[in-house]
């Protein structure tokens, strides 16, 4: 009797395990910046295509690519969302685990916005000033010193007399990488003290963000940044454009290098701090997991990522017309990733 129950239970468990093997649902991991767009497409795709709705996990760009590259078998994700381009080291990691063929799709642009509460002061900054406010070491009197600035007005008398408090994403985050790449790196080259440096010393001087409490790392959660901004009106948050778009009644964007972050300014590349968003498709899963082709086609259709598509309602900045055509064609010929 007891032996029988045991056999039955084992059989049931085995049945469950085999049932799990044939996956009929796309799995997507990656950037929390792409997550709002990816989920909208997934939902639309699930409602209209007859395929199951894809599962989308928000793991951050780095974590997502790690999962994506962990293996080529069915248990690994099919698509990785990324708010920065895949790095050569990640491509190599993919290749050693058998993921050799990847297709890269660019979905649009995202502006990185410095925002603060409507009740707070209005910030009009340059990227050099932002560098001085957030870098770990700053040039002063011909050499690099630990960042001494406590108030914005110490950097430039024209800036508000407020403490420097910047809430931004932590270092595993694609938005942080983009901030370093689009704000810190272009700005640091303008200081002769840093320009004189070479190699690693220059990289450290350009990339390191201060750790003395003025830059507060907030992990994976823009809503938390939003709440902090509202409770401290003089503090500044590093957010993506879709948050400004959805919460324009509570926070306002700072002007960077004379440009304000609006849809048109980002689309026309006038706003300096914007970056492309990507997703990566595992080619050996196409045809194995049903629906990948159709999902990518839905994502790159005009009604989704086009100029008046439903993704622009969520804050995505559409690519120029010619580029959209190239990306849309990728769901037919699946070109390999070229770094």
């Amino acid at each position: 009797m007891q032996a029988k129950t045991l056999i039955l239970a084992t059989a049931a468990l085995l049945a469950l395990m085999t049932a799990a093997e044939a996956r009929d649902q796309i799995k997507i991991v990656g950037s929390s910046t792409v997550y709002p767009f990816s989920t909208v497409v997934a939902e639309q795709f699930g409602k209209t295509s007859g395929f199951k709705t894809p599962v989308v996990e928000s793991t951050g760009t780095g974590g997502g690519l790690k999962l994506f590259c962990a293996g080529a078998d069915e248990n690994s994700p099919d698509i990785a969302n990324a708010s920065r381009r895949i790095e050569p080291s990640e491509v190599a990691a993919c290749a050693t685990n058998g993921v050799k063929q990847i297709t890269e799709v660019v979905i649009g642009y995202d502006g990185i916005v410095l925002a603060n509460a409507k009740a707070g002061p209005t910030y009009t900054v340059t990227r050099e000033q932002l560098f001085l406010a957030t870098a770990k070491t700053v040039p002063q009197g011909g050499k690099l010193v630990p960042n001494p600035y406590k108030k914005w007005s110490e950097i430039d008398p024209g800036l508000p007399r407020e403490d420097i408090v910047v809430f931004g994403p932590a270092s595993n985050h694609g938005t942080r990488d983009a901030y370093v790449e689009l704000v810190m790196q272009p700005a640091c080259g303008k200081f002769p003290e840093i320009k004189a440096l070479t190699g690693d010393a220059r990289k450290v001087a350009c990339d390191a963000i201060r750790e003395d409490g003025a830059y507060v790392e907030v992990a994976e959660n823009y809503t938390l940044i939003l709440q902090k901004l509202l409770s401290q009106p003089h503090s500044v948050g590093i957010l993506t454009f879709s948050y400004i778009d959805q919460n324009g009644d509570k926070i306002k964007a700072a002007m960077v290098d004379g440009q304000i972050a609006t849809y048109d300014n980002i689309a026309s590349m006038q706003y300096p701090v914007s970056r492309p968003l990507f997703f990566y498709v595992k080619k050996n899963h196409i045809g194995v997991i049903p629906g990948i082709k159709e999902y990518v086609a839905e994502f790159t259709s005009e009604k989704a990522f086009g100029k008046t598509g439903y993704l622009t309602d969520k804050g995505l900045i559409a690519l120029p017309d010619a580029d959209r055509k190239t990306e849309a064609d990728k769901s037919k010929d699946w070109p390999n990733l070229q770094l």
Partner: protein
Amino acid sequence: MTEMVEQMRISAVAEKVEARLRKRYGVERRFRLYGVAAIAVALTFLAVLLFSVLSQGVSAFRQNEVRLAISFDPAVIDPDGRRDHAILANADYAALIRQALLAHFPDADDRTGRRELSRLMSQGAELELRKLVLSDPSVIGTRRELWLPVTAAVDQLAKGHISRAAEQGGQFSERELARFDVLVAQGLLQPRFNKWLFTQGDSRQPEMAGLLGAIVGSFYALVVTLALSFPLGVATAVYLEEFAGTNRWTDLVEVNINNLAAVPSIVFGLLGLEIFLNLFGLPRSAPFVGGLCLTLVSLPTIIIAARVSLKAVPPWIREAAVGLGASRLQVVSHHVLPLAMPGILTGTIIGMARAVGESAPLLMIGMVAFIVDVPATPMDPATALPVQIYLWAASPERAFIERTSAAILVLLCFLAAMNAAAIYLRKRFERRW
């Protein structure tokens, strides 16, 4: 003379005694006061928490809908009149809604007007119509008055959560606001019970987002947890308490069980990722795997509770049973275990309540994800209630703020029900000696 001195001494002593007594009473009064203060502080925190969740979340249980006279035009839904399922499923229901709205607002019949009207009604309205037609094709050709949901932005406007004025970031044009006011004034736009919240899975459109997927996911995970941790926990406790002697090995086991109870739950998530996903190849995001991880979380609690209730069964019960010739197994299964069962069940329910509120282990095994479909089996991807709260809290759309609080309320209700069950079992079946 000596008498007087004697009396003075006595009264001096009495005074000292009294002073000391007063001091002791004073100390006791203050001690009680500290206790009351401590309780008051705890209650205040609870009240603040409940108030903030309730005040934000209650409005999510009602959702604004518009009463529209929809004519189910056969030319739109089923042009060839064959009542073919595929054609009915893919018909242009948005056109029916647009027609009904245009009948109300004839002035909106231009390009911007049509766009504005499409921003009024939720996509859920189309799904409602489609469901109605598919379940009962005889409505085609008739005209019906229906309550259909508006978009989350309009819903938030009606609830006063976003401002009307454009300079404060309002998203609506003057004409849209005017139409909105007309609908409200005519009583055609009203808050009604938000059934979506309990019948749908997750969605990125807040007005259609529901908790059903998360509730079912939590349920599956809990069933797996209960099915594994209850027998394992009770068997461990019975063996350790009734059969194993005290030696170095049982001491070691005991210390380790107590240690496990204090391990942060994220560790069990990492363990689950390594063992269940990477080694056994079980699917990511499945509540079955979630249940396995939560078993590890709740097992120590259950073992400890079961051991305590087994210990509470007085030894003379065992002695009497042995005296009447019962074997040790009979002593345990006929007498000790039934008497200890209420306590064990209480401990199990409390362990389950801990498991249902746990989100950290689920993060590692991929249950923190956007999942629309309600899971049909424990192997399908699913979220759980605490995870859904986290996901909604991180969503940029304003309407998710109230839904986050509503989800917290639902989770609190489940926890309160489970704890009430535990208290009931204890009161009803517990025996004291």
